[in-house]
């Protein structure tokens, strides 16, 4: 049970709690954890930034560092982990990866849930996922 688990993450404390809960489950199930971090392409112009520095202002470098940090955390618990950096809406990115890897569980932090705003990430996932969804209490 819950052998292919997808969790969304960014650099927030709430995301770290969700990832820890996902690690706990995969440590028991002996499955694989897929950590997804998404960034929205920003309209910020790189005009005026010297060419050799343009790479460093790309948002995906921040995403990569979050993924590297959280993947290392999973590995220290003996959990097999794959990292996915995605461009686009976070909820959609998580659902896309869940579909691609055939997830049987998606884990999300609860932040944003109590405001009852339909566009919040856990709410979107809870309504649209076709597999089990764990909403980890993080607030």
């Amino acid at each position, binding site marked *: 049970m819950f052998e292919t688990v997808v969790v969304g993450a960014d650099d927030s404390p709430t995301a770290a709690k969700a990832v820890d809960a996902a690690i706990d489950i995969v440590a028991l199930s002996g499955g694989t954890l897929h950590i997804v971090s998404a960034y929205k392409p920003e309209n910020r112009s790189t005009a005026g930034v010297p060419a050799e520095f343009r790479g460093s202002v790309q948002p995906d470098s921040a995403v990569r560092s979050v993924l590297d940090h959280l993947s290392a955390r999973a590995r220290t618990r003996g959990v097999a982990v794959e990292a996915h950096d995605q461009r686009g809406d976070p909820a959609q990115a998580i659902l896309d990866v869940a579909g691609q890897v055939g997830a049987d569980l998606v884990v999300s932090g609860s932040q944003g849930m109590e405001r009852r705003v339909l566009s919040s990430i856990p709410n979107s996932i809870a309504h649209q996922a076709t597999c089990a*969804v764990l909403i980890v209490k993080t607030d």
Partner: protein
Amino acid sequence: MYSTIVVGVDDSSTAKQAFTRAVEFAKMSGGTLHIVTAYKPKPTSGADVPDEFRYAMASTGEADVLLRRLADQAAAEGVASEVHAATADPADALVSVADREGADLIVVGNKGMKGARRVLGSVPNSVAHRANCSVLILPTT
């Protein structure tokens, strides 16, 4: 991991599917299951029922039969359980049992979560928004 797990059930086949997976999860996690069902007492007057039987008439019956059967199913998997029959709205019943028992997880089936019924008011949706602990929503078909 999750030591006190509340699961909501009713007599539907989707709830039974979700319950079977909740038992599996509780077994994996090593927790105690609190099985909750909500029911509406039948509006019988009870006028001709002796006092000592009135309580039994309202609270036993289908809810208790269901709870006993599911507790047996959990026990067969080696999972300890306690049962709760509540005369409340199902989402209220789940959240209040979870609060009272200090639950760290509520498990519900996803019935009502998708499609035309994805409006507020469905049990999983309501629980997900109001719970003071983590919530596991299981897919049922």
